[in-house]
């Protein structure tokens, strides 16, 4: 299994390998002793088969959540938007909510 990972790392880093045609890529895969099924998956750009064989399972990619909303923010907004003549009343209502 390590053969295919090392091959992919080399493929990612070497311009000639990255741009190699199918025939040249097949030759490089054979020289690197990459397992036949995995080599076929790479040649066919079949990422699903490769992942299923090398690292099955779900991999989550979401790493950020939106900021938690501050419940006081809306109240502050209401206070700011309130007209001067009834501002005190609205502020009191907001704080008692």
């Amino acid at each position, binding site marked *: *299994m*390590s053969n295919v*990972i*090392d091959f*992919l*790392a*080399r*493929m*990612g*880093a070497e311009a000639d390998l*990255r741009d190699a045609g199918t025939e040249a890529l097949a030759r490089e895969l054979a020289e690197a002793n990459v397992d036949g099924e995995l080599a076929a998956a*790479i040649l066919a*750009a079949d*990422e699903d088969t*490769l*992942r299923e064989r*090398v*690292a*099955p*399972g779900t*991999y*989550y*990619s*979401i*790493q*950020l*959540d*939106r*900021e*938690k909303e501050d419940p006081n923010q809306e109240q502050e907004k209401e206070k700011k938007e309130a007209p001067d003549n009834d501002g005190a009343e609205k502020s009191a209502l907001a704080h008692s909510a």
Partner: protein
Amino acid sequence: MTATTAGTLTCVGLGMTLGSHLTPIARSQITAADVVFAGVSDGVVEQWVRRLHPDVRSLQPFYAEAKPRQATYRDMVEAMLTEVRAGRRVCGVFYGHPGVFAQAPHEAVARARAEGYVARMEPGISSEDCLYADLGLDPGRTGCQHFEATQFMLYRRSVDTSAWLVLWQVGIAGDLSGGRFDTEPRRLAVLVEVLSRHYPPTHEVVIYRAATLPFQTPRIERMPLGSVQDASLGMPDTLAIPPCTPLEPDLAIRARLAEFAASEAP
């Protein structure tokens, strides 16, 4: 606060494509660490990280369906800091850039520093960087706005339709639970409705996904805005919207700057 113990934390980015984007300093931080934590989006890429260090611990087990993502990120931070507090040299490895759309690395670095440990972040090549290259988009030409998709839906943002608009994490657009890892046509229809305040439904948009494996090609799928609600979107997908209006000249500012230029003429 100055460091008082030997424990350290460095969060590095792997870049997006296996083997292509790892910087020399990121590689060095990985190999020099006592323990490595891996937060990557692709199992094959995680296997590659395991080839770089004998003690790589995946952060993937902290995720679970319906588990609040905030709890997941807290668990990730705690796992890394536990080893830092034990006096170990810790490296957190994250796909792309560890500080772009990534909560745990920022929090881990901030908390480690607050506790007196040396902590730093090394940048990586992000999906945004790949998008510019793959779509042939230069943000310097008309400008480019970036928003997280759900946040964009929840707030009234000022959209400049003469610049590009890029919405990230569109694959979970409209999730208020904080525990979903997908979206569906109802939520996407709301996103399209929000975007339709600014863009015609026929405006062509691009669904983009960077390549994570070196034999892959990036996903670049163009469609009218109105079709986005029926599109198949996954966690790594991004929605990029080209400008739909020309740049609007500011005649008053132009006149003032022209006066400067005239006064400086030989």
